[in-house]
């Protein structure tokens, strides 16, 4: 499926740059609480998913993540994501009033494959959050994102998020990844 490796290095670089800049701009929308603009970056068929991770023996490490269809921390379509955003716009989203302060460090951006209009990319991230008197939370992990070129613009068509935590150490995940 991948035609990415067939590109010459210059073309790969250009595409990587585009992807990276998209992801940076998208993270900036979330960090600056421009959630409606963020929603506009999503395709209507987006799948936004964060499975649950478990500690297993090395022998059974294939059971580490829950599978699609089972329990998950996030298993959202666009409607659900819209509800999340709407929630935050409402005056009684207590976990986000006062609003959290977040910062997304997006690193290790790699384009893994190109499939027609779909660009499959991966990146590592750290999402740092403080609430109230500098109470800190931090999530580190990897994302698998699919970007789709729609009318010349990149959109986010799939986001699978893999955290390094089993039990979530934060009191909530009222933010987006």
């Amino acid at each position: 499926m991948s035609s990415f490796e067939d590109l010459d290095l210059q073309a790969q670089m250009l595409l990587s740059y585009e992807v990276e800049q998209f992801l940076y701009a998208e993270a900036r929308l979330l960090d600056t609480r421009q959630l409606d603009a963020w929603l506009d970056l999503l395709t209507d068929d987006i799948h936004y998913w964060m499975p649950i991770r478990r500690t297993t023996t090395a022998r059974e490490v294939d059971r580490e993540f829950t599978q699609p269809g089972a329990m998950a921390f996030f298993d959202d379509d666009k409607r659900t994501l819209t509800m999340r955003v709407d929630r935050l716009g409402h005056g009684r989203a207590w976990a986000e009033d006062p609003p959290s302060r977040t910062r997304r460090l997006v690193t290790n951006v790699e384009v893994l494959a190109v499939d027609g209009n779909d660009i499959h990319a991966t990146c590592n991230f750290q999402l740092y959050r403080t609430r109230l008197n500098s109470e800190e939370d931090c999530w580190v992990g990897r994302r698998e994102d699919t970007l789709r070129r729609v009318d010349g613009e990149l959109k986010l068509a799939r986001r699978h998020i893999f955290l390094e935590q089993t039990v979530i150490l934060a009191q909530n995940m009222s933010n987006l990844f």
Partner: protein
Amino acid sequence: MNLAQHSARWYNPDTGTLDRRIFTDADIYRQELSHIFGRAWNFVCHESQIPARGDFFMSYIGAEEVIVVRHRDGSIHVLLNSCPHRGNTVCRAELGSTRSFFCSYHGWNFDLDGTLIGMPNEVDFYRGEFDKSAWGLGSAAQVASYRGFVFATMDSAAPPLDEYLGWVGRLGIDMLAGKGDLEVVDGIHKNRLQCNWKLAVDNLFDWYHVKVSHGTSMRLGLLPEETISADAQMVILGAYGHGIGGPGLKPGQLEALGRRKDGDTSTDAEWFDMQAAWRTQPGVREQLGETGVRSLGHPSIFPNLWVALTNQVCLRIPRGPLETELWWFTFMPTHLTPEQRRTAIWSANHYFGPAGFLEQDDGENWSHSTRGAGGQFTGARPLNFAMGLGQDYVGEDGGQHSIETVVNEHGQRWTYQNWQEWMLAANWPELMATGSPPPDGLV
């Protein structure tokens, strides 16, 4: 100890007020571990989580990890996860399947029931004189299941599980188990809140907070206002601190709902159908009883299990006075259609857990309440649990007792009163002798 002198030490049943120090004091917390979690029947998992021989699941009793494992004979054992040699853990996975528990320090090997079955060089180093039967893994004093829900107690003096649960605890589980054969859905939401575990427990009876705390969820249509049934609340109180509180149907309303099913597509009807339709199935009314069949409330199995309406149970694991770990287990009746199952899992994934629409806001409130309890000045001021105190009556329907009233704090008061009795009792016999029977008459 003169119980009379102490019976209002922290909770005053006359005024419905509570000393906040019970949420932050380290000594009280240690006493909870011994007097409550060390004695109670604690939910550890559901049988469907460990279907095969050798399957295990790492759970907790109080603040301590225990291994729940299915033995080769099909029996379930609850083992302490600490080798008696130097104390190393013998199992470091959350779940899995194994043939034995092999200690990674010196290689002592334990059978699925905890028996020490292997020691490297037993003959040459221990000279063949070691009494292996005396040095197995510690284990729960009693293990038993009710309808697939596995409980364990560390106290051999505890009454049998059935007696412990009583009709209220059993009813609480029936309200989930009665929906059909249950099977776990893979994946448990686990996260940590900076709150005392009791504040999370008391909240399950709390139908007062819904409109304010969960205002966003109501607005989004996740919690239709009608479903709170503010005027038709039913509280059922059981021995040892169990209880069920929340919306109740009026006698005869269930049948009406059954009929209303066709054509009526209001969210009201939808929600009641989801929660109540199965109750019109044959045999359910007989099983739940005339009162039970009408309760759509939240069962609490003392001390720390909540049977939620989302086909889930939530365990509140204490991690010190100021921290609680929440575990959400999800069980689906096997007869659901794929579409029903998908919808039910969507709810389980999106109502609770750290990213759940409802729970995000709850956690913040509970941790701030815990902080307030620890304040130099605020900690000295009592909390108020007086809603409905002395204003309702325990009624009876089909031999079962309940309070039918408006939104109230009867369940919370019952929880703290029983908590106090457990804390003051020296042991099970004393608790059985001194514990309050569920109230009758005016409450």
